[in-house]
């Protein structure tokens, strides 16, 4: 088998083969379908609760190690990296958006957005001309009013918090964004607006987005969609 790097044409941002994970006390392992997502493409992954969405995202982010199978990100076999290298890889190449509680409560909106640039030199350099300015550009594009930028994030609405989280995932143009139901706490207007903005900005910097949700009505925003089968009761 050849590595994705040696292929001409689009490099797969995410490649999963024969992946399964066994939680210590679970009766049987969770298995995942094979996936291949090219650079710049957006995938909607439909999964009801209990289908192992969070486990899959943890495996992709390198925070869990698979029981068997392979995760390749940008051609890099994640199993080949040590703990520290996986943390660095995540800082350099992956943006993450959670369902809620996305922000560090004691930092301002701007400081939350620039956080990845302080953990990764690659993303600091990519956030041209400087992280602060890039953060302001993203916050503006995501329609966060400037007087909220220096505010404590706990004072902002959920919708605003999620958009700030999107700005943090986007800053420094990481190759991959992993989103775990980021819209489930939003109302339908906010939901579509959030998705439109996120995907538009991602497209502008050629970032692949893997979006996990149980809400099939969102699927039309994406290039592809696929599903996880329910493996746990």
């Amino acid at each position, binding site marked *: 088998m050849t590595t994705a790097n040696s292929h001409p044409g689009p490099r797969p941002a995410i490649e999963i083969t024969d992946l399964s994970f066994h*939680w*210590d*006390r*679970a009766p049987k392992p969770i298995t995942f379908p094979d996936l291949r997502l090219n650079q710049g493409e957006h995938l909607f992954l439909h999964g009801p609760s209990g289908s192992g969405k*969070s*486990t899959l*995202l*943890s495996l992709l*982010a390198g*925070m*869990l190690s698979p029981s068997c199978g392979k995760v390749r990100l940008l051609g890099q076999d994640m199993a080949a990296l040590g*703990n*520290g290298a996986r*943390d*660095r890889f*995540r*800082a*350099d190449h*992956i943006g*993450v958006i*959670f*369902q809620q*509680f*996305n*922000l*560090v*409560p*004691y*930092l301002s909106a701007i*400081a939350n957005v620039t*956080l*990845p640039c*302080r*953990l*990764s030199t690659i993303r600091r350099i990519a956030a041209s001309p400087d992280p602060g300015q890039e953060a302001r550009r993203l916050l503006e594009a995501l329609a966060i009013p400037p007087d909220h930028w220096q505010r404590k994030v706990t004072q902002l609405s959920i919708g605003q918090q999620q958009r700030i989280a999107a700005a*943090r995932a986007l800053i420094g143009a990481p190759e991959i964004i*992993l989103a*775990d139901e980021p819209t489930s706490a939003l109302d339908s207007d906010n939901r579509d607006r959030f998705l439109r903005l996120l995907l538009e900005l991602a497209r502008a910097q050629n970032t692949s987005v893997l979006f996990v949700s149980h809400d099939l009505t969102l699927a039309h925003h994406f290039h592809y969609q696929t599903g996880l089968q329910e493996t746990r009761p």
Partner: protein
Amino acid sequence: MKLRLALSLASASLWHRRKVLALVCLTLTLSVSLLLGIQYLRTEVKQSFTSTISDTDLIIGARSGQLNLLLYTVFHIGDATNNIRWSSFRKLQEDKRFSWLIPISLGDSYQGYRVVGTNDAYLEHFRYGQGSQLALARGKWFHSLFDVVLGAGVARSLNHSVGDQIILAHGGGSVSFSRHQNTPFTVSGILEPTGTPVDQAVYISLPAMEAIHVGWESGVAIPGRTLTREQAEQKQFTPKAITAVLAGLDRKIMTFRVQREINQYAGEPLSAILPGVALSELWRLMGQFEKALLGITGFVVITSLIGLTAVLLTLQAQRTHEIAVLRATGASPGLIATLYLMECLGLALVACLGAVLLGMIAIPAISPWLTEAYGLNIRLRPLSQEEWTLLGLVPGAALVVGLIPAFGTWRRSRAQGLGGAQEK
């Protein structure tokens, strides 16, 4: 760079939680102040204590232990075992090796304060602290027979001023039934405060001491045999005995030789002691107590640190989301643990700073009161090496107890999935 990130996160986090942490920090500040304060006072009290008397080479009294002699001559505690004959004192006066001698005659009291019978040499030669001389705040040293000079503490607490008439009591104790009624004394002067037992005594001349005891040979006043002031002033008195002698030598090198000679004096059994040696022996006895006190305070600090850890561990439960965000953004478990350690260290440093500031405010504020009430001279001075070490131990100990939450977080965040996902 990561360290700088951890530092800025730690300070922002501490500031964010300042309301909860302020109380813990206050507890720690107070316990560190206590620890530092006790160490500080220990040194200062020792300093103050050992400078109760200075420049006196020998204290001479009737044969007894050195502590007893020191206690009754310098600290006015306890009683003399016996007296020195006046003839012995005359012999000492003839000895050319002494540059000065202060005779002291004890036994009476005034409202619980010792009456010290002495002469002009006391004012001239007695030294305390770093060689400070006694001085009169008001009035003058005694000149006529029934003049009395008051120590600063006596004058202040009994509210006496120059010209007041006072009646001395026979024997010690604050309540005395036999008083020298016929021979009232007039306050001629009041000494400057010294912060030593000198403040807690009244001073009369040796002839006056003799005069008020005429007719008291049996221990109580025999009516008709005591003298009135007028009768006494007509007479000349020579003391028959004194209690002790403070002596200064011309050449310090002779001290041990003179001491040995006095101890072997054939005329009567005498003891000569070196006040410095006796003072340090006395301090060693009392030192056990202050060491125990310091030990207890150490435990108070440890208790506060454990309290701090408990609070940090409680806060940790509220921080899972924050930690998940940091981890997802690429922070390593090590960085998270460092963040926790820095917060713990930061609190300890704030507490230490608070304790030092508290000391710098408190010591000048209470030192006049300490001097007045307890005769302790506590001054503000830079911290000694020992105190810096003690202070440095606090952040060190905080780091050690901070390891508990830090290690817990480190271990947990290694095993946790994205967003804190873990086995339910």
